């Protein structure tokens, strides 16, 4: 866009050296850059020390615990981490820290996360037998993915911090309008009576109710989605476009409900032996193939989902 707009990553790096290390080191190793809390705690420092003002969340703490033990998440010695977590909480209590409800619930999320991780770890690799096992495996992957994502955001947050810090050293020229220009502004139209003005003030000063956190109610009123229609759609696409991945088949789904309907439709189609599935690697993309004759119609589907959204 402009000469002045150097890509951030390039500028953020020199910042560390220019400022004598005052800004977070953008190019630092992931662990150090990502988890200042853990970095501060260091490998040697006894106890897990987190200042409450700096505490930002369960993933933060979890990452900190993992980073501190310099372990890959898949090899985390959970017993150690869990012990340490409990110790951390006891320590906070002994310090007489007051716990706000928010913070307490955040810690509960950590506990749950650790429990998930532990449960997932209990599953012996490569011996997936029943659906519960699969669910556990997915939970572990999901958790792992979330941790990685959180870590990535933590890293870009550090980059942004360095950039904001660097940029704050430039002050914009922002001066009052020179008087002769100010005098040229159109005369202000003022129609408010003191009472109207007071009403305005009253409204402006009334504390606003916090904006509602969304509750997912949309599905309750969603338009019905028919499994049969979705089966028809899938059939059409597979016959025309050859094998498609499940991902591709749901790419245009406008809601989760449609995704679910297409999934159910696929199961139906599989039962009716008109499609086949290929999966190259475990947990890899699922390729769906049309195996029936071109004359198939959705009327041949079982009646199970008839008229059910």
């Amino acid at each position, binding site marked *: 866009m402009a000469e002045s*707009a150097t890509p951030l990553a390039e500028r953020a790096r020199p910042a560390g050296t220019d400022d004598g290390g005052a800004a977070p080191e953008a190019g630092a190793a992931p662990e150090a850059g990502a988890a200042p809390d853990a970095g501060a705690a260091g490998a040697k420092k006894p106890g897990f020390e987190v200042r409450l003002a700096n505490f930002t*969340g369960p993933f933060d703490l979890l990452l900190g615990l993992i980073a501190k033990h310099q372990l890959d998440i898949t090899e985390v010695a959970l017993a150690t981490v869990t012990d340490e977590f409990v110790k951390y909480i006891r320590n906070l209590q002994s310090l007489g820290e007051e716990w706000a409800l928010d913070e307490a619930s*955040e810690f509960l999320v950590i506990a749950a996360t650790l429990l998930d991780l532990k449960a997932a770890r209990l599953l012996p690799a490569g011996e997936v037998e029943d659906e519960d096992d699969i669910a556990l495996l997915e939970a572990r992957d999901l958790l792992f993915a979330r941790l990685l994502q959180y870590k990535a955001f933590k890293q870009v947050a550090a980059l*942004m911090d360095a950039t904001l810090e660097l940029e704050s050293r430039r*002050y914009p020229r922002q001066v009052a309008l020179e008087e002769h220009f100010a005098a040229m502004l159109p005369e202000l139209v003022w129609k408010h009576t003191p009472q109207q003005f007071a009403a305005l003030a009253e409204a402006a000063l009334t504390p606003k109710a916090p904006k509602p956190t*969304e509750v997912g109610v949309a599905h309750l009123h969603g338009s019905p989605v028919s499994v049969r229609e979705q089966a028809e759609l899938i059939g059409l696409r597979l016959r025309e476009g050859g094998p498609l991945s499940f991902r591709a088949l749901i790419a245009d789904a406008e809601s989760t409900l449609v995704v679910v309907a297409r999934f159910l439709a696929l199961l139906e189609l599989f039962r009716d032996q008109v499609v086949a599935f290929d999966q190259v690697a475990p947990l890899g993309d699922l390729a769906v193939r049309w195996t029936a004759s071109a004359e198939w119609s959705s009327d041949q589907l079982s009646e199970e989902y008839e008229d059910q959204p």
Partner: protein
Amino acid sequence: MSKSHQEPSSEDMASDATDFSALPGGARAALEAVLMVLDVPASATDLAAGLNLTVETVEQLLLELQREYDGYTVKAPDMETASDAGFTSSPRGFELRNVAGGWRIYSRAEFADIVGAFVLEGQTARLTQAALETLAVIAYRQPVSRARVSAIRGVNVDSVVRTLTQRGLIEDSGTDPESGAILYRTTSYFLERMGIGSVAELPQISPHLPGLDGIDEFYDAGRM
């Protein structure tokens, strides 16, 4: 203070142009004069409309001024229009930058300590870790709901979002048609504070996020 002008085509405007040769310093100085009164970045288009010059001319003049303030000798053989731009070769105390889609004058970063002593209200306080992470998620996932940001950060972000809004770094950008949730996006003030032209200039997140392109889908499926 900038705004979009209803423009006749730039050719029309040039034909009807102000006679800058009668003014001291010509079009370059006129542009400089306008830059002096800006209180938000102004685009080359707005500046061109206000000065009755073509956008191309203004862009060239802006680049000339920018280089001159930075101390480059602008009278190069290939820049004939820069004939009166002088031979300055030491940087000025200020710089002209193109940020958030517009141009604006800033004091040079090297003098931050000195300038800071004169500016009563220093630049806003540094953001906390929580605020930075929330801002990062919103910047990369915008428009995005608080619930999604919370899911990524693993904590409730309501109060942080409120503070970021108060500081003008993010804003309400309507509601999600499906969930009815308020969606947030970053503001042009955010771009200005980051010194970038658009969010596309934010550093790529993918090197930090190996192989997780499809994570959003995962997310909606398994919300904790």
